């Protein structure tokens, strides 16, 4: 019996991946198209292809526990539906559900712009950082931490940035 790809549910799966993390075992079958590679056979599989596949396997990450904001009652499900938070506290209370790093407007999780007027906040005097450097450092540490979902996104951001700079 041929195995069907778990992502597109259409093509024949070419890759079988298992992840063992303590008690949790996850497995996944995917086709070449969904893995983002032209064709795949053990002979022509390059190590960079393999790295790319691993970085793309966001879905191997277990979905985070459902969260709820104690201030406004917004839940993970609410957020997934509306893509809006209910209050400022949601940014901490629904942190895992928000997945801020996935948003195209997010370059790094640290605000660099102006700060409110006379409200006791220390104005941020951060040096203007090199975007590319930040992202590359982020990628290395994410791969070390096995945060493949985030790593895949960051890798794409780097690729886009490099293309833009070239």
């Amino acid at each position, binding site marked *: 019996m041929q195995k069907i790809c778990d992502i597109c549910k259409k093509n024949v799966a070419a890759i079988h991946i298992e992840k063992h993390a303590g008690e949790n075992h996850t497995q996944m079958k995917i086709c070449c198209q969904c893995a983002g590679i032209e064709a795949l056979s053990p002979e022509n599989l390059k190590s960079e292809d393999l790295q790319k596949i691993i970085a793309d396997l966001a879905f191997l990450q277990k979905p985070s526990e459902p969260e709820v904001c104690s*201030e*406004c*009652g*917004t839940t993970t499900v609410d957020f997934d539906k*509306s*893509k*809006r*938070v*209910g*209050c*400022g506290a949601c*940014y901490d209370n629904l942190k895992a559900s*928000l997945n*801020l790093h996935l*948003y*195209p*407007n*997010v*370059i*790094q*999780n*640290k*605000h*660099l*712009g*102006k*700060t*409110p*007027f*006379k*409200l006791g*906040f*220390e104005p*941020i005097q951060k040096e*203007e950082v090199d*975007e590319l450097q*930040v992202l590359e450092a982020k990628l290395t540490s994410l791969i070390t931490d096995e945060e493949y979902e985030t790593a895949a996104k960051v890798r794409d951001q780097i690729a*886009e940035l490099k*293309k*833009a700079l070239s």
Partner: protein
Amino acid sequence: MNSFFKNLASRSMPWLCLSGPSSPIVLSTKMSLARNIAGQLYPDKLDELAGLDVLEDIFEVSESLPDYERLNSYELNTLNEIEKDLLLERSHITHNSVFSGIAGVIIDEEEYFSVLVNDEDHMKIQVMRPGLELHKSWKYLTYVDDIFGKKLKYDFSNDYGYLTASPEHVGTGLKCEVLLDLTGLYLSGQINGLVQSARVFGYELQASENQDNRKPQGRYILSTVKTLGVKEEKIISSFKSFINDVIDAETRSRVKLMADSSHRIQNLVSRAYGTLKYNFMLDEGEAFDLLLTLRLGLQLGLFENLNFKQVEDALTCSGNAHLQSVMQELLSTEDLNKTRASMVRKKIGLAD
């Protein structure tokens, strides 16, 4: 209907008609800041009582803005349907806010400045200018932001900056956009390439969606996307240099277009002019298409007895809500189309 609304119905937005830096390729600049007030739920979650409290607080602080006498503040649920539609057609409010019950708007007499209250966020402070005026707009915007910020405690985190209802705006809360006339790139089939390269640079290029399902013609909105992890000044200066590249590309393609196919374009424009002159009924979409074609002729210098303001006035004032405001009543589709035909003729100097 008060004089402010009567005035609106009779003209297009002044910042869309005047010429400014880099016009006529850059028609106008819009810049906005999303802000929320600490300790309050966001508008989606606010009940009516708390929502109207927030609205009142914001209206009250707006009294300390410069030129307060020139500002008009409205709670949307106190306006009638025609008035709300008129603000909607001019993009001062959103569909969402029309139905919210707690939304409001502050607009200056000439429509250069507005604050949308309790829409997606508690406040969307917005500045509009003719042509390309990013630095001036930012200067004014941040000045007004500080006036509000001195009296209202904004929702802010050291990590994520200004907190917003949608994570898409968190950080600076800043969005910059320019309305562009890219007729040259559009007609020469280069728009899709530009959409792609805009994305690579972190911008978004979209057909200006005044009319659903109509051909976009040459009008596009280019806007910034990045908000977290980058300074406002950096956003603005990078955006400006990208826009300058777009202007160069458009200028080159217009020169080439006029050299290669001036007769084809002249034919297109003359036909549009003829149709506008001799017709009895015009639907909204057709009027839009024909007027944009006319505008193209203007861009390419094919008219001497017509100016951009006339065409912009005709474009804006031929919307259904505008026609009904002028006529002071709700009209049937047939009456709308008849009224539109003569309104457009009047605005472009072809009065019956």
